[in-house]
């Protein structure tokens, strides 16, 4: 049963279909292990954004508030989704990578200091 309701065959109205986002899709991005801002962030993004643009523009916009972000080499990061690790193709787009609306992607970088809990 998909819901316990007083009317049989009740179905809910899904509010968050991609058609509501003005041509964008939502992408959830998580910088793993960096617990001071490591919870997943949610951004609206064009499905035609290339992975290179993601690394050069979108991700820096999120994480540049981190004082040591400049020392991070995103091109050496390790990437994964809930389905496991993947190797991004810089010239290909979000949708080429098969990331649907509301997908979550995660990346890992080298620790920024001797004490990982400082960043």
């Amino acid at each position, binding site marked *: 049963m998909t819901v316990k309701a007083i009317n049989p065959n009740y179905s809910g109205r*899904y*509010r968050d279909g991609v058609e509501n*986002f003005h041509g964008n899709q939502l992408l959830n991005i998580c910088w793993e*292990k960096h617990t001071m801002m490591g919870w997943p962030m949610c951004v609206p993004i064009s499905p035609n954004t290339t992975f290179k643009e993601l690394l050069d523009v979108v991700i820096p916009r*999120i994480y540049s508030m981190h004082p040591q972000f400049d020392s991070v080499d995103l091109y050496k990061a390790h990437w994964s989704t809930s389905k496991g690790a993947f190797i991004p193709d810089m010239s290909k787009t979000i949708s080429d990578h098969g990331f649907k609306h509301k997908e979550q992607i995660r990346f890992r970088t080298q620790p920024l200091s001797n004490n990982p809990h400082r960043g």
Partner: protein
Amino acid sequence: MANGKKLNLKQNYSMLTKGLDWEPSYQKKQDIFPQLEFEGIKIHDWSNWEDPFRLTIDAYWKYQGEKEKKLYAIIDAFQQNNGQFNVTDARYVQALKIFINAVVGLEYNAWRGFSRLGREFGAASPRIAAQMQAIDEMRHATTQTHACSHYARFFEGMGNAPYQFDRTWYLSIPKSFFEDACSSGPFEFVVAISFAFEYVLTNLVFMPWMSGAAYNGDMSTVSFGFSAQSDEARHMTLGLEVIKFLLEQDPDNVPIVQKWIDKWFWRAYRVLSLVATMMDYMLPKRVMSWDEAWTIYYEENGGALFADLARYGIKPPRDADVTIKEKERLSHEMWSIFYANRDVVGFPLWLPSQEEMNWMSEKYPNTFDKYYRPRFEYWKELEDNGTPFTNTTLPQLCQVCQWPCLFTEPDDPTEFSHHQTEYKDEHFQFCSDGCQHIFENEPEKYIQAWLPVHEIYKGNCILDDVDPESPDYNPMVEAIRYMGLKPGIDGGLFKEHNDAMNWEKWTERPSNIHNQPATDFVRKTGSDK
């Protein structure tokens, strides 16, 4: 009764509950009480229901009247004596903002929910108990509003509670919790609210936190808190009575009730997690840590309860072990995300002082020095350098509890917990296995969630006076305005906040007892001269 002899408690209760009911003659019972069957709960004999307090409406008015007189005498005295300036410092008041903006809306929704039960239950005794509880809940909403309204004359961020409750991003957490319950069937509602929320968990809010309010000199809050809690004791009793009644009526009810206990324990725990930060970070003088409170009120007292219910085949809630693993980090993880996002919340944030961090090291010996002290010390350095850390991107929210997915793995505080599922070819994200499990049991309910982050990105969170095509349109500033928050005033750093400035100007005392005064208004005395 002709001889005028006083009835004893049990006789009086029977006359004034069951004695008022009647059997319908020209309508079918099923038509009068249409909500009682679809949840699968089987009730064979409603007459087995009994309120252990045996409270009847005459006694109810008498004792509630006395409680109100006591409460308003204190609130009057508090207001006449400028009690708002007798609390420990202005940081304490920030916790009251969470109270007025988050809790009062819950009380009001509880009134809605119990009003429905007062109509829908199949016998007079439980209907009367529910009606009295509905009146209680409305009393709580009004007394809390009344008490906090006095604070609202002197402090920011407390004057717009119902508006904010319906719009502010983090207030969708309590709002969606209660609306989830109100849109459930009547039996699920009563198990959710009376049992899982009130019996198992609200002691954490009203006992250690209210005792903490007293300890910090807030006569007004402790009075409405304890006055509400005196009703709560009756509600909790109803909650336990409900569970026993359902379990005794039919063995088929046991797995249904177990599922509701599992679900609503987790839902209620996630909502009440906010209290963890209120206890550990927002009380300038502390009575007990969240960890200690959880140990006493859930593990010991809740343990006794579930040991008692084992005879019916009821087990402790599915995710109880996760709550125990999280208790040593919950408040620290939440305070961190509130601090990082302080420009979009309705109250200002601060970093714990050395003295406070030492208290936390003592109370959280396994986690605080290892994970959280280094982070707060780093953030302190950044504040001191004039470049305080802040986050400007909206978080991914949990589809069920609506918290940002800020929680870490039960067995590893350095890894955030990721849970994703697909339903009808769409992705859904969750903060925890507990919330994912709830979604997967009833996806058609939770796909409808009004998630603030998504609504902002859809462009739904702007006021009518805003033109999103205009060149100086700033979607974040407009979303904050839409949510009833004043950009640049309500959130931010405490030491720069109006409340801190005004407090020092009006009281000549430090706005943060653990730090240097933020202004020159604080009177120099003794060796400080």
